[in-house]
């Protein structure tokens, strides 16, 4: 049993933290989100060149630093602490995950571009009707000669406005909700027939509705086995869930510490509100939620290396804990901040908004509870 980080991982954490401390203040972030394009390509460039973190989770043969999911966890927690919107999760965790596990033809080349900061990926999986059932797909990919033609509408694709590539789930066969017939494609965003309707999200990202209208791709665009890619999707999704849990730990830490700090300074009825026992115990319960969330994130990371069942159970169990913690800690951070917590000017509200969106990201608390139940207790007991 080992719960420690390697020296490399600790250095990675320090590197990211210190860069963000210098370059990602609340005001800098705020200004970037308000302007176009809504993110800072120079930050991404720094991630690639100055910090060299985009390769942390790739193998040395692929040009990376030889790390893995734990490195993703370390980075994501720091990104969470600073509410970073730049697309590490969709590009490295999800895009990188598909390329590593699916091993499509051009994988190594594209990984090289990711590490260099030149390729940015968005994951187009959700559909308007599908909620959190990843196999519920109306988007189709019809065989056409050696390649495929894609048609469909993908909902709320986070990071699509600044992506160079889209990874897309589509049906090459089977009925709308069947587990069979699911395939995955990588499509350049500028491919003919791809259109987007872009908008910001409530937590400061940019996203798109993405429409595919007779988008032709070659056979090499397919990642994983034709029609049998749902297990691959689940695996990458679980890695995304674990990484999001790590991000959430960063967010929760700031919510908790910010609240404790505020409560110490804020006076009411002549004394700091941190002296009121009800608020003290509330902050203790927030702290316990944070600690439990960290524990569960470690657990999920460890389980990513296990069997499919262990991995899936671990990710869903962690997401349940994180979802509950995001709600409890977020709501109470605002409550204890009082009116100040309600203003756009204070950072705390922005952490709360991100925490709230994490509750539903890659499946709500109820979704992951249901998934965990089936994995742990069976469909019928």
């Amino acid at each position, binding site marked *: 049993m080992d719960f420690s980080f390697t020296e490399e991982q600790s250095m990675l954490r320090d590197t990211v933290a210190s860069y963000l401390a210098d370059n990602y203040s609340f005001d800098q972030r705020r200004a970037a989100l308000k302007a176009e394009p809504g993110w800072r390509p120079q930050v991404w460039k720094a991630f690639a060149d100055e910090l060299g973190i985009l390769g942390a989770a790739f193998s040395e043969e692929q040009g990376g630093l030889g790390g893995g999911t734990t490195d993703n966890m370390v980075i994501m927690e720091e990104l969470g602490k600073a509410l970073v919107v730049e697309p590490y999760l969709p590009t490295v965790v999800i895009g990188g995950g598909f390329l590593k596990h699916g091993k499509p033809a051009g994988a190594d080349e594209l990984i090289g571009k990711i590490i260099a900061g030149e390729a940015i990926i968005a994951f187009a999986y*959700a559909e*308007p*009707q*599908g*909620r*959190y*059932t990843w196999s*519920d797909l109306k988007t189709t990919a019809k065989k056409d000669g050696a390649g495929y033609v894609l048609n469909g509408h993908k*909902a*709320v694709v*986070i990071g699509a406005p600044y992506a160079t590539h889209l990874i897309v789930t589509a049906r090459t066969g089977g009925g709308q*909700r069947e587990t069979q017939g699911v395939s995955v494609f990588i499509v350049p965003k500028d491919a003919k027939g791809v259109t987007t*309707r872009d*908008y*910001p*999200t*409530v*937590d400061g*990202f940019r*996203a798109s*509705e993405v429409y595919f209208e007779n988008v032709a791709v070659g056979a090499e665009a397919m990642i994983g086995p034709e029609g049998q890619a749902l297990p691959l999707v689940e695996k990458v999704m679980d890695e995304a869930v674990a990484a999001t849990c790590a991000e959430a730990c960063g967010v929760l830490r700031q919510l908790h510490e910010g609240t404790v700090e505020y409560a110490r300074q*804020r*006076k*009411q*009825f002549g004394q700091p509100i941190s002296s*009121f026992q*009800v*608020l003290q115990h509330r902050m203790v319960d927030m702290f316990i939620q944070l600690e439990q969330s960290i524990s569960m994130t470690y657990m999920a990371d460890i389980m990513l290396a296990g069997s499919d069942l262990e991995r899936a159970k671990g990710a869903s169990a962690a997401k349940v804990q994180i979802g509950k913690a995001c*709600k409890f800690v977020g*709501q109470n951070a*605002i*409550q204890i901040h*009082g*009116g100040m*917590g*309600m*203003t*756009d*000017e204070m950072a705390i*509200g*922005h952490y*709360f*908004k991100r925490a*709230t*969106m994490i509750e*539903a990201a890659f499946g*709500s608390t*109820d*979704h992951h*509870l*249901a998934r965990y139940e089936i994995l742990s207790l069976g469909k019928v007991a």
Partner: protein
Amino acid sequence: MNLDFSPEDNAFREEARAFLAQSYPKELREKQARGETLGKEDYLSWHRILAKKGWAAPSWPKEWGGTDWTPTQKYIWSEEQARADTLGILPFGVAMLAPVIYTFGTEEQKAKFLPDIRDGKIWWCQGYSEPGAGSDLASLKTRAERVTGDDGKEYYIVNGQKTWTTLGQHADWGFFLVRTDPDSKPQAGISFLLIDMKTPGITVRPIITLEGGHEVNDVFLDNVKVPVENRVFHENQGWTCAKALLAHERSGIAGVARSKRGLERVREMASTELADAGGALLADPFFKRKVAELEIDLTALEFTELRTLAGESSGKGPGTESSILKIKGTEIQQRLQELALEAAGHYGAPFLGEGGHNSGVGPLHSIDTAGDYFNGRKTSIYGGSNEIQRNIIAKMVLGL
């Protein structure tokens, strides 16, 4: 013990329902349906229609336009308004300020202000909270010094800052708590002033709230000159007015009728949104259960409010029943907002801003669910936070 309505009550309900059906402005209903942000005139137009009917200020004394309705009639009226999904009359003038004026004001003040408040001719805002004060209202620092003007009349010169002034951007007049005696104890030395918002020295600055909306404001007062006759009640005894106003602020705080309508909306939404399993979200056992539990809790709140109206409850001081109603009422509103956001799924995330309802991004019912949820966090904070309400019950009812 029964819930029977008398024939008179039933007739009243018919009248209210018919009036709402006939008189509620069509343009307003359409704007609401499209989810458009409503402006000053939208609120006032409906207020004026109610005033014409004589129903703008049911709780006032009859001589100033009150209706003398029984509690049952008031209950019916709030139910019918929620049923018809109408805008409410803004509380600042009719529900909050007017009781202070007709209880503590001079005859001149009554004559000058009450008819305009009733008829929706002027827009009032509230100048209570100050930066850093929060629920500790009596710690206010805004100063009013009494001077004799060049015209030989008496004035207050007001300096300070108010905050959380809801819809102050539209206000014609405001009622302010100011400190007229800085040397006495916090709750003494406060006076209650009516101030014309066009007076030189007043600046209203928007506060953007976390969901991106502009509902509240900072109000800066820089040597604002207020005639002494605009003070209500005695100098240094404004706290008496403030307390009375706060008690009225909390009446209707349970919001039962509105939450019933909100619950219907969530049910409608969950009937078209799909669950993971493919059927309607409302058929998902866990979503359904949350709706059922909310419905039961709302019934409990409703009957607690009815008991309060009927005088059969165990509150032992003014405002103690309202503390329960405030706590449970806001909890229920917040849970409704949580459920709507949950039902929206992926489409809770887009931030579409003005015109979002015409954006075509996601189903109409999902638009702004996150914004409503974020904005709704305020309800357990303002009007005396829910923690303060628990302190009040502990002290006033349980004697702790």
